[in-house]
């Protein structure tokens, strides 16, 4: 085997409350396409950020081109020939292709830009990619796939030796994916190495030479694609023993259908008007039932939840509560019909960081603690906070404490209490345990069980498969805005779920 171009060994990285990487590693050979695989939260992004200089590792070493190196900054990594293309492009949309390719490195005398030279060099690079793009086109007017090509052109113009692509195919149509693969193979033939971070195993089998799998921040396996099977790789990706810490849901009695979502469609996103955000999404949730929604990032899970809750509009489809169609155009409508939503991003979407625990908790249920129609009855409000502090075991010094000073787990319990105080029929929880420690996770799970037992219909969206398996009665998988399958908890395991959410409908 040739000497590797890149060798990252024993990389460790700790964030407050989480060991993101622990003995992670990655070896990439010259002139190969390497797949970096793992579940959401396995540490792929963190490893890529360390490689690209955006973050510094706590432990471990990086060898690049036979030398020990430290990537002090993204600029430093680029100077050494490592360029990362993130899922969210970093192009300046109102500037031309040529300006974007040479941004920060414009050719020209002194402070002036030599436009002629910049355009010529851009044309040379795009020709090398086999593309016909006019260097003076404005980036905003390009399609997503073309914008991605501009990113690649920029990487080439920096004389890169290693290009990292984070989920490069997630926003592309299948013909665009083919084109990307052709370009990537060309680049490989020219001696470049490419790291593909992806969830799509079919594509990995099609285009990659070797793979590395991370799980819980550790390197768990690597090898040649030629010797691997999809099943084998899935087993490596999920392969944990379901943690004994997680309580399993007991058999429960479920009642009548409370929420029915029928044929939800939503077209268009910021980048592409023709893409479907939601395509014919239907599902049912019964009284006392927990339905888990599994899918990769961008599968449309959050979009479905926000559409049902009235936070985002949808183009067509119906929402029925207890058999009657309801018209939901705003969160206010949803709340009136007994739907609550615990959003995925606690700090941005749920908390009022500058306000006290008490005011945060009661925010959705002022109507219950009002006297004379306008004054908040603070006595009743304190009693409400005390009730949920006990029920949910919220650890706080005082109800007057700022919510910002609570731990993530306790903040999440306050957010849950905000909805419980309202007595909802349906509660949608989006990533209910994101960013909270393991003990609090178990508490949140038990809480969800209790809510279901009290008769609430619960929809739980989670990117952690073992969590979905631990808390759901029934699991619905989504991919690219569509429901790709439905399975009972007792029939499911992580391998099955992973293939339901990664393989396209016909392959599954």
């Amino acid at each position, binding site marked *: 085997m040739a000497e590797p171009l890149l060798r990252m060994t024993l990389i460790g990285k700790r964030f407050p*409350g989480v060991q993101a990487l622990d003995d992670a590693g990655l070896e990439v050979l010259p002139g190969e396409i390497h797949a970096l695989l793992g579940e959401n939260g396995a540490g792929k992004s963190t490893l890529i950020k360390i490689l690209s200089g955006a973050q510094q590792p706590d432990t471990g070493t990086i060898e690049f081109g036979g030398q020990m190196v430290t990537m002090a900054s993204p600029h430093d990594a680029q100077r050494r020939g490592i360029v990362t293309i993130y899922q969210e492009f970093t192009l300046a949309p109102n500037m031309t292709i040529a300006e974007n390719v040479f941004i920060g490195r414009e050719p020209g005398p002194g402070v002036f830009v030599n436009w002629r030279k910049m355009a010529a060099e851009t044309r040379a690079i795009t020709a090398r990619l086999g593309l016909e793009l006019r260097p003076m086109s404005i980036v905003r007017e390009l399609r997503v796939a073309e914008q991605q090509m501009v990113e690649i052109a920029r990487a080439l113009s920096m004389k890169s030796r290693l290009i990292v692509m984070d989920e490069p195919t997630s926003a592309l149509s299948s013909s665009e994916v083919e084109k990307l693969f052709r370009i990537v193979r060309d680049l490989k033939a020219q001696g470049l190495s490419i790291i593909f971070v992806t969830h799509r195993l079919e594509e990995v089998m099609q285009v990659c030479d070797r793979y590395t799998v991370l799980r819980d921040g550790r390197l768990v396996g690597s090898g040649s694609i030629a010797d691997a099977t999809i099943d084998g790789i899935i087993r490596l990706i999920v392969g944990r023993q379901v943690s004994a810490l997680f309580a399993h849901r007991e058999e429960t009695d479920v009642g009548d259908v409370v929420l029915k979502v029928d044929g939800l469609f939503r077209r268009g996103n910021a980048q592409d008007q023709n893409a479907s955000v939601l395509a014919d999404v239907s599902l049912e949730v019964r009284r006392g039932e927990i339905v888990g929604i599994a899918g990769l990032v961008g599968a449309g899970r959050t979009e479905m939840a926000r559409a049902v*809750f009235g*936070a985002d509009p949808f183009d067509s489809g119906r929402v029925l509560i207890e058999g009657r169609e309801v018209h939901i155009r*705003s*969160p*206010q409508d*949803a*709340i009136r019909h007994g739907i609550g*939503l615990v*959003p995925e991003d606690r700090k*941005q*979407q*749920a*908390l*009022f*960081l*500058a*306000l006290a625990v008490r*005011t945060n908790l009661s*925010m*959705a249920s*002022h109507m219950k603690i*009002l006297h004379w129609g*306008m*004054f*908040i009855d*603070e006595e009743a409000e304190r009693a409400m906070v005390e009730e949920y502090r006990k029920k949910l075991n919220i*650890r*706080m*010094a*005082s109800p007057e*404490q*700022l919510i*910002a*000073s*609570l*731990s993530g*787990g*306790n903040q999440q319990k306050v957010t849950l209490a*905000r909805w419980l105080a309202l007595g909802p029929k349906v509660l949608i929880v989006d990533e209910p345990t994101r960013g909270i*420690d393991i*003990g*609090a996770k178990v508490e949140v799970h038990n809480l969800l069980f209790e809510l279901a037992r009290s008769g609430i219909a619960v929809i739980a969206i989670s990117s952690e498969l073992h969590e979905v398996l631990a808390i759901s009665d029934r699991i619905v998988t989504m991919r690219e805005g569509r429901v790709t399958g439905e399975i009972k908890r007792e029939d499911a395991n992580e391998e099955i779920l992973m293939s339901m959410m990664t393989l396209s409908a016909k392959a599954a």
Partner: protein
Amino acid sequence: MTQDLHSDIQAPAKIDIIGFLARFAPLIFLIVLMTGFALDEPRFLTPLNLFNVLRQVSIYGLLAVGMTFVILTAGIDLSIGSLVAFAGLVAAAVSKGGLSNRFTVGAGQEAASHGWYLAAFAAIAVGLAGGFLQGFAITRLKVPPFVVTLGGMSAFRGGALLFAAGGPISGFEPGFVWMGQGRIFGQVPVPVIIFLAFAVLAHVVLRYTRYGRQVYAVGGNPEAARLSGLNVRAVTTSVYVIMGFFAGLGAFVLAARLNSAEAVAGTGYELTVIASVVIGGTSLFGGVGTIFGTVIGTILIGVLLNGLVLMNVSAYIQQIIIGIIIVLAVAFDTFAKSRRRTS
């Protein structure tokens, strides 16, 4: 679990120091300032001078109370000076008995004259309408508050100049003038009573009502407020209407005090008023602030200007000092916000 315990015990202490400073720094600064002036100039602490200071700030104070609502939602209103001029002129014309009588000399004995309450009603109606228009443009047309009210600043001033047709409108009936120049118990100026009464009312609204909670919530995190079922658009519009109410009321009191209304009245008020609110600890980022702080901030600026006058400091230097204080107050606010974020 240990992490939970740590953050539960340690964090509040850290927050409280910043919170305490944010709340009481203006008051402490005010006391220090007054002590300093009193030592330097004995005339400063006489009741007469203190009431004069309060009377001078009472119109700024009324506007600052309205501005507190706006800034709590992370908005801004630059149009208030112009709106004060426009509403004042309308009040003056109503008091004089209509547009055609507005340049009649004298307190209206010869011409038709209406009571002060009609004038007050007219000024407030103009303020409410102006505020609603701007609130509508901000929430429905989605133009940033800075731009909408910058436009309002120009448009209302133009309206005032048109309405005044060049000259001031002066000489009102005694009841009107008393609202600006009268004193109760021979000591307390009427504008001071009006200012403090409305400050108390606004404090009750913000602190104890559901609406008050909604203002803080919309300012602190509009997305979270929307997802909690609040009508963010209605709340945002309403604060500009409230600001308009106070601009109308302020215009009425100003016209009464000067016994005159003119098109250039209120020029530059927005800066002093915004400064009072920010110095009083209300965050320009929204969601943090109190009426108590705004009252202190208003008095602080009044005392500072008054003391500097008594010490014969040039008016130009006064402007420089006010400018520096505003920047420092916002710098402190930014610092406090970053502490909240990272904790």
